[in-house]
């Protein structure tokens, strides 16, 4: 039995001790979007923005996750067609790079409430940082139609449109 004490009697052939262990984790999933999100994604493939209405208070959720997070009820099959125009309710000028956002710095992260929706959509705005402001009217800029898929990436970003700012009262509940 080599029950020998470790007194460095077999010096390491490497200079450095092993002090870090790489443990890559890699898991495979077959992800299901669920019927409700699938309906939304199939809509966006056709350039449609489909919201869903809460049967309790009538508020329109976009994007819909299939149920109302306030009243805990499942939405039915009914969808609501929404405009791709909306109002900026708040924004942030981002000067920190992120691996997942391939935009030049600084870029503008915005919360947009689409016309006809009662919930906000997080997206990015293509504008001069000095010009962005709450209440600003914006519209989605889409990829070329032939590139549309069942993905929210069909909308590249939002940009300002030539409309007067929305009244504060129209969007104040989303701030």
């Amino acid at each position, binding site marked *: 039995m080599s029950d020998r004490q470790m007194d460095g009697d077999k010096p390491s052939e490497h200079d450095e001790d092993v002090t870090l262990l790489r443990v890559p984790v890699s*898991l495979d999933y077959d992800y299901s979007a669920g019927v409700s999100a699938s309906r939304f994604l199939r809509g966006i493939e056709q350039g449609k923005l489909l919201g869903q209405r809460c049967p309790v208070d009538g508020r329109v959720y976009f994007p819909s996750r299939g149920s109302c997070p306030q*009243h*805990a009820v499942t939405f039915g099959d009914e969808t609501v067609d929404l405009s791709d125009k909306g109002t900026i309710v708040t924004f942030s000028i981002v000067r920190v790079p992120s691996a997942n956002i391939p935009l030049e710095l600084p870029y503008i992260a915005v919360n947009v409430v689409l016309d006809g929706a009662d919930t906000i959509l997080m997206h990015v705005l293509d504008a001069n940082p000095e010009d962005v402001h709450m209440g600003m009217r914006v519209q989605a800029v889409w990829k070329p139609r032939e590139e549309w898929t069942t993905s929210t990436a069909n909308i590249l970003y939002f940009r300002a449109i030539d409309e007067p700012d929305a009244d504060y009262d129209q969007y104040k509940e989303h701030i």
Partner: protein
Amino acid sequence: MRDVAVVGFEQSPCVRREQNRNEVEVLVPVLRALREQTGVAGADCDFICSGSSDYLAGQSFAFVSGLDAVGAWPPVSESHVEMDGAWALYEAWVKIQMGQAETALVYGFGKPSMGDLPMTMALQLDPYCVMPLWPDAISMAGLQARHCLDAGVLTEREMAAAAARDRRHAMQNSNAQLRWDRSVDEILAEPYLANPLRKSDCAPISDGASAILLAAGDRAREICERPAWIRGIEHICEPIDLGVRDLGRSRSTQIAAEKAGVGSGKIDVAELSAPFTHQEILVERALGLSLDSSSQTVVNPSGGALAGNPLMAVGLSRIGECASRIFSGEADRGVAHATSGPCLQQNLICVLEGE
């Protein structure tokens, strides 16, 4: 100690794959049914606690969306465990014991079908020495089963008998996933899935959710005609490394059972959450339940985890299945078991009693 009872239980059917509903859409009808059963809406409870796993969901902080099924606006008092809902129930029970709640909603949910479950389970292992070898959950269980067989602790015939019994019981349970009547000899004739385990020795992969309402004292009596009072609840953990544990018995189950007072009265019903037949036998023995068919205890009348295994809800469902037999008067006293970690590393025991 305050008197705390299970006063309501609902579950979704256990299915191999919930293709068309996300986790929230699976949960919403379960919570709605619980509200109809008890007259108490989840959002009106003093405390809400859930069990789920982000690794199963394949996204971080996935559990947060589970709250959509409760209706968390205006805000609610809430907590979450990255464990089976049975441990969420333990936390809720402590909260009520501390006098900070009279009612608590507990739920567990999971859709393991989206991933490769036996591999996802490898992520619960020691990340330095074991997980890098990616032992899948069935291989891990196989190591324990062979140890038990080699040591003469149990036989393949006993394992097949547990496999047959649970699936036969499940024929009466419309929520179960594996429901069949096969003889022990038929099961022993099956080829090995991962020697020494046959497919029948393994719990299915199930998607599903379940929910329980807890209430204290007179509030419990208002909500439920015959509450299932929690007379003892305990969970005990062993080291994670198989090499330093006695794999031929479930010592942690035994200690939890002693502390929960399983042996201090007759047990009419036992609901066990062991996902492999040899583990079910080890748990039965640790609980002191007789394997003899003349025993008074009905083990796994629902079919147990071997008939339906919605991970993160399966242990909570055992507590619910046990409680529902007390609600109905079918049983006066029962024990429910939940497990977590590799090869019965951690076990929770809950003793329930009707008045």
